[in-house]
């Protein structure tokens, strides 16, 4: 397309119609109103089982080459939006970590195609656009060329308010033909505490600056009051507005390029293939289940803690320890339809870790994109499964009971729950023999945020992207990838250390692969890594070790096929240190975590405060200062298989590399090895290893007791609530109250009285 024709196309696209023209524009003559189109789409899916009633894929069948080519062009358009948007944004989260996404949607909201980035967002944007239509926005305020709509409120389609969702309608010759949307995670959302990981928010009134499903601009420009609001209600408004401009720039890029595509291939063709891509995605997800999984039921319990008792909190009711019950039940029926339930989920919490069902649907789409439906990634996979309404009043559906529940980092429990989806489908794929598709459970997401005066003498608040590069889950046939995977994005990227140092007053003393951090199994999960930071060039800075989906008191319930799960997340820090003296004297510093009982932080440093085994999340009680040290670990993923079936050569190699430790090699993997100082390598004694492993098997048989005997003993301990933390008791009470059938099954299993509760 020539520059001139592009200009004409853009003018056509953005020229503002009069009132009567606008009504025609948004309705179209044949299509009816958007609300009518939505109702028709829903009815056709119900009646035919196909999205938009597409029993035949006319365009795909008649011209598969062009069909595929246009898909690739749309992908390219969305990814161009991503590149432009991130460059314009310039905030570390978008520019350095890529925590953003741009997408293209039907007029009724369904995502057609998306860019790289955070794949939980297309579902959110789809549901947000749907909610605009269902709320009558088509009439008031109406949709016009050049409009900019935005939302970050979980009550109306958002997930958590740090994720701003911007949508722009795309008109062609007066007709609304599509939407483009974007989500970026801003550096500061205006929460009650600085930053964007609002786990500490007690209620929605502390959930930051609200943009409540509103029109924030016209004629491709923000209204002036939008920027005024961002400047008065977020702490780093240049970055917040940079993100806003980045979202808009990416959307306008997509809009202009889509119009060029429509000019070339025709509107009718675009409208046809856009719907076929979505139906194609649904078919792919159904087909994958049908050909690679098994019908039946899969269950996976999981739990996540949020232990805040005795810590710095905001309100008295937050002086409490919480444990989340995150149950997953999947039923696959004869038609390969997948039904998902959270029966048994525990109650909402007085922290920013509650999520709405609509956000959960989008999260599910994220997880599904990794393990089930990832060919043409769009809204289609959502039609391949159903999510039962989570128990009202639970962390997964708080509003029916508490409309003011906080969602500062709503993702936190959901992402840990979704980890079970990997293992659940992994088990099903295993049974069919698709061992290469098996993935054990995922890693956790422990964030680091800094707020205070930076090295340039100005106030800063923001997130590192350290956590966006976990180890990946073990496969059915191999170890997981190390520091190259992330549950919430297929584009894992922890950013450059040197660039992070430019943003915050810290220096990296270390960024190391963490040995043995991928669980213990025949195949280990990918290993995580540890960042060691020295606070430098600041008058004072606060460190928020945030929960965006971690476990610190408990392990994940991910012992797939006999493996041990990864350990809990435990950061460390020291303040008032002697590091300057050590530097001057050229003495050893801290570059890694070291021994779990005698860590380097304790061995190498003297300090007024040394917290080497902190239960996360937390906010430092006061500012950290020059020469203080933070040790921030990022978790690995889960393992698979009996640990004494691990290949001794793999253990030896990782001992050499410093990725495994002798005690674990010996005690957990049963590998007998010694370090040959002369050859400078580890050597395995094969015969001794075989003998040790036999002894371990025999020991297991000797000390294991028949389940039924244990059940009898355990039942008595349950009745006595023996050694059960208050958080555990409270979790069971709320789970049983919110899901009576779950309670009945629990009581029946332990043969507890009908009125028993914890």
């Amino acid at each position, binding site marked *: 397309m020539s520059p001139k024709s592009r200009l004409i196309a853009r003018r056509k696209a953005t020229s503002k119609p009069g009132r009567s023209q606008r009504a025609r524009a948004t309705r179209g003559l044949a299509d009816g109103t958007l609300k009518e189109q939505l109702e028709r789409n829903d009815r056709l899916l119900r009646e035919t089982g196909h999205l938009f009633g597409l029993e035949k894929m006319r365009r795909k069948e008649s011209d598969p080459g062009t069909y595929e080519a246009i898909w690739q062009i749309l992908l390219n358009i969305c990814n161009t939006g991503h590149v432009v948007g991130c460059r314009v944004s310039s905030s570390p989260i978008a520019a350095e970590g890529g925590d953003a996404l741009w997408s293209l949607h039907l007029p009724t909201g369904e995502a057609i195609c998306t860019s790289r980035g955070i794949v939980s967002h297309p579902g959110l944007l789809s549901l947000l656009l749907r909610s605009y239509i269902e709320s009558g926005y088509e009439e008031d305020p109406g949709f016009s060329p050049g409009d900019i709509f935005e939302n970050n409120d979980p009550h109306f389609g958002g997930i958590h308010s740090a994720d701003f969702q911007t949508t722009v309608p795309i008109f062609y010759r007066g007709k609304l033909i599509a939407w483009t949307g974007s989500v970026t995670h801003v550096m500061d959302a205006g929460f009650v505490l600085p930053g964007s990981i609002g786990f500490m928010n007690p209620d929605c009134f502390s959930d930051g600056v609200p943009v409540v499903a509103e029109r924030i601009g016209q004629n491709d420009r923000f209204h002036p009051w939008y920027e005024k609001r961002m400047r008065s209600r977020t702490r780093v408004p240049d970055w917040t507005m940079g993100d806003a401009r980045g979202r808009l720039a990416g959307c306008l890029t997509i809009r202009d390029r889509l119009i060029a595509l429509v000019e070339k291939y025709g509107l009718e063709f675009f409208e046809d293939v856009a719907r076929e891509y979505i139906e194609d995605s649904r078919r792919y997800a159904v087909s994958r289940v049908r050909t690679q999984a*098994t*019908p*039946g*039921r*899969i*269950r996976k*319990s999981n*739990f996540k*803690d949020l232990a805040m008792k005795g810590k710095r909190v905001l309100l008295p009711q937050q002086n409490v320890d919480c444990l989340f019950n995150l149950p997953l039940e999947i039923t*696959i029926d*004869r038609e390969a339809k997948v039904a998902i339930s959270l029966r048994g989920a525990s109650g909402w919490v007085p922290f920013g870790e509650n999520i709405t069902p609509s956000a959960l649907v989008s999260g599910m789409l994220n997880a599904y994109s990794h393990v089930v439906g990832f060919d043409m990634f769009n809204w289609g996979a959502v039609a391949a499964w159903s999510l039962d309404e989570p128990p009202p009043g639970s962390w997964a559906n708080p509003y029916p009971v508490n409309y003011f529940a906080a969602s500062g980092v709503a993702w936190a429990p959901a992402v840990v729950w979704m980890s079970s989806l990997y293992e*659940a489908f992994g*088990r099903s794929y295993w*049974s*069919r*023999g*698709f*061992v*290469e598709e098996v993935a054990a459970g995922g890693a956790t997401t422990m964030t680091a945020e800094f707020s205070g005066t930076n090295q340039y003498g100005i106030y800063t608040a923001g997130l590192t992207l350290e956590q966006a590069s976990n180890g990946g889950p073990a496969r059915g*046939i*191999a170890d997981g990838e190390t520091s190259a995977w992330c549950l919430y994005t297929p584009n894992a990227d922890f950013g450059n250390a040197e660039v992070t140092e430019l943003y915050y007053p810290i220096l990296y003393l270390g960024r190391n692969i963490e040995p043995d951090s991928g669980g213990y199994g025949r195949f280990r999960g990918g290993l995580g890594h540890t960042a060691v930071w020295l606070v430098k060039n600041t008058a004072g800075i606060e460190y928020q070790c945030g929960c965006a989906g971690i476990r610190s*008191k*408990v*392990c*994940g319930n991910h*012992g797939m*096929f*006999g493996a041990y799960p990864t*350990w*809990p997340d435990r950061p*460390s820090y020291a303040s008032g240190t002697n590091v300057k003296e050590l530097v001057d004297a050229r003495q050893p510093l801290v570059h890694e*975590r070291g021994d*779990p*009982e005698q860590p380097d932080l304790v061995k190498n440093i003297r300090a007024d405060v040394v917290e*080497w085994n902190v239960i996360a999340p937390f906010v430092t009680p006061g500012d950290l200062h020059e020469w203080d040290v933070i040790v921030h670990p990022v978790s690995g993923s889960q393992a*698979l298989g009996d640990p*004494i*079936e691990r290949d001794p050569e793999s253990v030896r190699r990782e001992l050499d590399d410093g990725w495994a430790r002798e005690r674990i090699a010996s005690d*957990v993997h049963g590998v007998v090895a010694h370090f040959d100082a002369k050859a400078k390598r580890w050597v395995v004694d094969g015969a001794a290893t075989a003998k040790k492993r036999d002894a371990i098997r025999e*020991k*297991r*048989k000797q000390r*294991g*007791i028949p*389940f*039924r005997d*244990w*059940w*009898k003993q355990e039942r008595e301990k*349950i009745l006595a609530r023996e*050694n059960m*933390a208050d958080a*555990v008791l409270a979790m069971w009470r709320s789970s049983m109250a919110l899901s009576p059938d779950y309670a009945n*099954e*629990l009581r*029946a*299993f*332990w*043969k507890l009285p009908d009125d028993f509760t*914890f």
Partner: protein
Amino acid sequence: MSNYDSSELERLIDGELPWTRVQEIMKDAKDGDRFEQWVAILQQRVPWKEKILLPLTTALFIVQKGKKRIVKCRCGHEFGDYRVNWKLESLIHVLETEDQLREVYRGREQPDPSWIQIREYTCPGCGTQLEVEAVPRGCPPDFELLPDLDTFYRDWLGRPLPDEVEFADKTLEAVRNWRSESR
């Protein structure tokens, strides 16, 4: 649709294929006879004759034994009706104190035993660690995979199994018969 010969699939299963080849297999359309080949390979590797109906884990299989469908370990140990959670017939050892947890997790790596217990499920026959659970006291054992075998064989594979059985979780029925010395 792809097809792989049995020896290549065996190498895939055993983790011996080069990663580049595994990636090709992951990207290609899946082979339609994978399940049949998978079961045939595994059947050759077990020392017993019962027909494998569905592999459950690296060590456990649902097999046809006479008219019954039972869970069986690769070593030959039998766990009973596949519709009852096989864990009820396993050996169990629980790490639930700090000292016990030290066998695996030490120092900052140790979870809090008043929040969670580590349950090790072992095969009574061969001592293989079959599953590990990390759950708080009170959590019934996960019954991870309960396949609807008749639907699978009849409707998905097109070769019905003889003697259809009810698709139902029979675990609670089994527990109902246990003596609890209840209060």
